[in-house]
């Protein structure tokens, strides 16, 4: 597997929190960073993009031994969550600053994307400042700015969160087009809590809890590795020892187990199904939460 980013022992220490990550972002695919609030997703993204200074460890980009800061800035399209641009900026300000900051910024493309998102154009006479825009539209403007650049890797912190369902669907299409345009050469890393909405565009998943990676892999492989288990109340006690996590009620229980235990689970009367990424994520994250307690 070719790697867009190879992260080895990347460490960032705060007073009450330590991030220590070893993970891979495969080249040519979209990778989702999944974890509870405070798991360290934003810390990781900011550390990769040079916003945070790290304490130790390495992140190798594009399989190059070293990458200087200007090349990193040029080839990576980074967008933080929340307010990426100052709130008094207008589309025109964004376009002008992006053009100064990045060689690969295409203003025509930026205007096309902004128009498609219904934000108007950076050439319009009357323009709203970001302050007067909704959260969703601010993110649309920031995404338009990132997608208007010529990059090889997008690193986006919760791009889907403030978007409505239609805009999320559109974002997924933009991801697929981005990956298709330079077939196999481009990659995406994005953090998200909207797993169900983003599942159809997630190729690889990295799960984080308490600053560490607790699971990672290609989604189709993970869906084969784990199995979703349902039992009646009568059979639940026999199934429980084999479950990684479960929630139970009077009618029975639902839980996540390793597929290698499928035949034993079926023998005690459980019904099994292939989990969705959302179900898998809940199980993996709940297990981590239980371990922390």
């Amino acid at each position, binding site marked *: 597997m070719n790697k867009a980013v190879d992260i080895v022992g990347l460490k960032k220490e705060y007073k009450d929190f330590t991030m220590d990550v070893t993970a891979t972002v495969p080249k*040519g695919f*979209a990778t989702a960073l999944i974890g509870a609030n405070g798991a360290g997703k934003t810390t990781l993204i900011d550390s990769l993009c040079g916003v945070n200074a790290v304490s130790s460890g390495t992140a190798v980009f594009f399989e190059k031994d070293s990458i200087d800061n200007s090349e990193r800035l040029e080839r990576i399209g980074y967008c933080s969550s929340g307010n990426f641009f100052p709130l008094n900026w207008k589309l025109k300000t964004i376009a002008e600053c992006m053009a100064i900051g990045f060689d690969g910024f295409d203003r025509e493309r930026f205007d096309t994307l902004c128009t498609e998102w219904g934000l108007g154009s950076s050439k319009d006479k009357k323009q709203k400042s970001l302050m007067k825009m909704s959260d969703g539209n601010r993110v649309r403007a920031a995404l338009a700015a990132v997608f208007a650049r010529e990059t090889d890797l997008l690193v986006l912190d919760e791009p889907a969160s403030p978007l409505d369902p239609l805009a999320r669907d559109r974002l997924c*299409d933009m991801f*697929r087009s981005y990956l298709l345009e330079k*077939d*196999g050469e481009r990659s995406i890393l994005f953090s998200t809590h909207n797993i169900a909405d983003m599942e*159809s565009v997630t*190729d690889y998943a990295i799960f984080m809890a308490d600053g560490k990676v607790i699971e990672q892999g290609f989604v*189709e492989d993970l869906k084969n590795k784990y199995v979703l288990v349902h039992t009646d109340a009568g059979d639940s006690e026999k199934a429980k020892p084999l479950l990684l996590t479960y929630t139970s009620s009077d009618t029975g229980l639902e839980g996540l187990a390793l597929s290698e235990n499928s035949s034993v689970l079926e023998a005690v009367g459980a019904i099994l199904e*292939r989990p969705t990424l959302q179900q898998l994520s809940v199980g993996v994250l709940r297990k981590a939460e239980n371990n922390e307690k």
Partner: protein
Amino acid sequence: MKILQNSAEPIYKQIYAQLRGDILSGRLKSGEALPSIRGLAKDLKISVITTMKAYEELAAEGLVVSAQGKGYFVSALDPRLIAEQHQRRIEESLTETIRCAKMAGITLEEVRSTLDALWNLET
């Protein structure tokens, strides 16, 4: 290609089954290129890895080959191999039919007449 997003059948298996059918029936000819992995993912609104998984299954059966950097192509298939594949599928589904019939106590004669009726309906 028709894909059900909410079927119990995984999406990669649906793609695999449809392409397999197209190859064995000759609708996709040997040497013909399959759509690019990322192109098909975009068209079907699914992830790249799902498409890739379907192509890998076809490759594992020898129905397609991957050419580094150029994508996937339909293999040069031996006509006897195709005939065998068809025969195998027919035997599989008939075995299942026999199992059902025996479980329900339906006679061979009754199964035959059902088969005749269905055969005529299809043609």
